[in-house]
């Protein structure tokens, strides 16, 4: 039965000079079509950036503002990473906004009221987040209570506990170390240039590792005689990647350098992207979200995976809570309101599906940045929060509407 297979498998790329042009275009178009959602959002993000850059007369991409933008949105982006996992697994978490506030309050009580060393307090706060996530995950995975209900209860509960803990007051300021971690930049060494040396160096390291990674991947695929991008297209992709990293690096290096929170975020994105793409755990999350009965019958321990996803969400919510608290330099009972909705919106704009099983960490980040740039740009244009909300709502609707339309058109 397998004799005729070699002939029927993939046709090689068409040889001959005049055909490579259309061949390359075809490969690009195919790639674009396959990842319509992600590329679509990337293009939309680019458009939004360009639009606001023009409307604000160049203020948007001022080094100072880019720095600000990152710091302003970092906590939503951290939450969006965890939320993406939750949504891919086919659940939802409404409690993260309240949980960030609760963790911030815990940090404030520990460091301000009890003068605990801030490093220890951070550790304890992460444990508090883990515990909160574990309890909710347990109720969802093992007791079978729907995640919507459990986390809706959590949302009310943690908000209430925050107010109890803070007695309705704002508590601050935080010790210097914690403040710096949330608001600070990478330290500077070396000769005085017009740029931030360490940031430049870091940028170069990233560029080198990206290029190395891509080249190694390509060689490995060739080794297994799997089809790869044509050489010219591959070069184009490399140039685009390098240019993008370089641009961001230069922008940040010409101000105070890279914010520490950005580094944290970068590590999270790369780390979680890797986990979702390359680990058994990540695969199992996609499997239970894509088809739970099939995953169960394949021996996936769905309850344990669900539990771990919520545990992880708790830890990330704690991390976001610490970043918010450090940035505002105070814990407030009203912190983190609506963060859960922004994180959920980011995930859906970034390609998640209501029914689960679909989405990427990078998508969540792109979705979060779309919202973040809209926020920041409209702030620069002094658009009121009333209209900002209207426009963000429309953006969410447009992104998901485009996705639905695109799916229907391709006839699924």
């Amino acid at each position: 039965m397998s004799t005729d297979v070699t002939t029927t498998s993939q046709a090689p790329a068409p040889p001959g000079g005049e055909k490579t042009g259309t061949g390359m275009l075809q490969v690009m178009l195919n790639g674009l079509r396959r990842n319509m959602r992600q590329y679509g959002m990337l293009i939309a993000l680019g458009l939004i950036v360009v639009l606001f850059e023009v409307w604000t007369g160049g203020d948007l991409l001022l080094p100072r503002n880019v720095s600000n933008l990152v710091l302003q949105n970092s906590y939503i982006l951290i939450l969006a990473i965890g939320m993406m996992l939750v949504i891919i697994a086919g659940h939802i978490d409404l409690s993260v906004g309240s949980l960030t506030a609760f963790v911030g309050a815990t940090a404030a009580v520990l460091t301000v009221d009890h003068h605990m060393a801030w490093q220890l307090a951070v550790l304890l706060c992460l444990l508090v987040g883990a515990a909160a996530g574990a309890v909710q995950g347990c109720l969802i995975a093992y007791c079978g209570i729907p995640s919507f209900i459990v986390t809706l209860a959590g949302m009310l509960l943690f908000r209430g506990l925050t107010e109890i803990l803070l007695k309705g007051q704002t508590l601050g300021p935080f010790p210097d170390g914690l403040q710096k971690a949330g608001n600070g930049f990478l330290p500077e060494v070396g000769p005085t240039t017009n740029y931030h040396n360490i940031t430049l160096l870091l940028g170069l390291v990233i560029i080198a590792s990206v290029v190395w990674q891509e080249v190694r991947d390509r060689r490995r695929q060739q080794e297994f005689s799997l089809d790869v991008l044509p050489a010219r297209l591959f070069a184009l992709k490399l140039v685009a990647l390098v240019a993008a990293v370089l641009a961001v690096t230069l922008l940040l290096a010409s101000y105070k350098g890279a914010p520490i929170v950005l580094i944290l975020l970068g590590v999270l994105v790369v780390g979680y992207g890797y986990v979702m793409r390359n680990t058994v755990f990540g695969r199992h999350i996609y499997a239970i979200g894509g088809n739970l009965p099939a995953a169960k019958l394949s021996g996936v321990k769905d309850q344990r995976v669900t539990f771990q996803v919520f545990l992880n969400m708790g830890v990330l919510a704690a991390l976001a809570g610490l970043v918010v608290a450090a940035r505002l330099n105070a814990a407030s009972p009203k912190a983190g309101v609506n963060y859960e909705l922004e994180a959920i919106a980011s995930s859906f704009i970034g390609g998640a599906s209501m029914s689960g099983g679909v989405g990427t960490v990078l998508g969540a980040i792109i979705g979060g940045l779309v919202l973040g740039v809209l926020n920041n740009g409209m702030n620069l244009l002094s658009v009121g929060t009333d209209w900002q909300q209207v426009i963000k709502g429309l953006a969410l609707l447009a992104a998901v509407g485009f996705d639905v339309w695109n799916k229907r058109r391709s006839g699924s």
Partner: protein
Amino acid sequence: MAGPVLQMRSIVKTFPGVTALSDVNLTVRQGEVHAICGENGAGKSTLMKVLSGVHPHGTYEGEILFEGEVCRFKDIRASEQRGIVIIHQELALVPFLSIAENIFLGNEHARRGFIDWRETLRHATELLRRVGLDEHPETRVADIGVGKQQLVEIAKALSKSVKLLILDEPTAALNDEDSAKLLHLILELKNQGITSIIISHKLNEIRKVADSVTILRDGRTIETLDVKAPETTEERIIAGMVGRDLDHRFPERTWHRPKEGEEPALEIRNWTVFHPIDRQRKVVDDVSLTVRRGEIVGIAGLMGAGRTELAMSVFGRTYGRWAGGTVLKDGREIRTRTVAEAVGHGIAYVTEDRKHYGLNLIDTVNRNISLTALQKVARHGVVDEHEERQVAERFRTDMNIKAPTVFEPVGKLSGGNQQKVVLSKWIFAGPDVLILDEPTRGIDVGAKYEIYTVIDRLAAQGKAVIFISSELPELLGMCDRIYTMAAGRLTGEVPRAEATQEVLMRHMTKDTQDNEVTR
């Protein structure tokens, strides 16, 4: 003899790639009980869906005459208005509404949108008396058994002033007592002038209540027999149901020769399982069977015989409530209480419902294949994507999976290729025992042959294969030994040499009252 109330003439119904009905004729006389029988997939349900407007006029060819008028039903409401009501095998009741609310659902006694409860209760009580159901009409449907729910369905049909009642396997989910009651009611309704069509596998039931029987096979009408005529024996009906020409071939098999004193690879002893919801009902009842290495053992049975339920309950108790029995692998008792345990002991179950239980349709071919045995392509919890891709490419070649790349979403493949992906996935897991549940359901003849070849190859490699199928020819063509099941019990074990369609069908339609297991 009364004239025809219903005539269906030259009905042809095709689905993309499949002809479900080709030239079916059915004539039902006024006031009779007309049985329709045939194997699974013979087209019985499709024919009834055409009649009741589930498949609307225009999606099929041919003509329907009801009470002498040509009917072109555009939906189920239209057929109900003419007095044709179908009761599906899966009951269509809302569990949390009361009996009365269910009876009049979509057809409420109401004035300007407000329910008239007095009239609703009065009418419901009257209907319940007619079907002989002694329950208060305000009882929730969830609180009564399946047998009584069936009666509620019939009451609902009566509320629509039904003239022709269609029952699709009405007793498949019922115990003996409830079945008897239901059959009695059908005869009662006949006396009240209601014509019925009943689809049934159970020949004894057909003999009890039906006046005539139409046999379908492979989407065609074979014949209509008068049940009361002396020449209409059960053998006669069975012959009509199975007597097809073999239109697909099987690979040459080297038949299994059991060695002296060899332990079976898998042995199931006294396995009993209750229905997950109806906790009184035994779905699998004291079943014992064995399969040896290199052997293909078939399990034949009609709808509701308990084959899938047996397989799934053995495979990590993924169905029903276990109530006894043991599983032995190579002579040693093993625990298979979770899927992970079953897989760990080298058991694989390839589901009959690949779309719902077998595949993640939105994910790619390679990821579906690797899912059950991810650890084989992973180190320290990290999946080696290149190795995974190689594995998938190997299966794409070996199994001849027709997909442009292994990164194609499985949902876009044809049924046959999806089935090959499911098989690949379980072969990759490296099991010793494979339970294949309807592995060729809904796929074309060419792909079937390829699947048979794979199954043969697995047996030749020394794997033990349990082959569950509703298609008798494929069991006869592939199996070394065939068990038959009916109503949750094992009703026969037939070695290849003695197996014919008639023999199997007789065991499969056996009256489940008599307990003797025939060899």
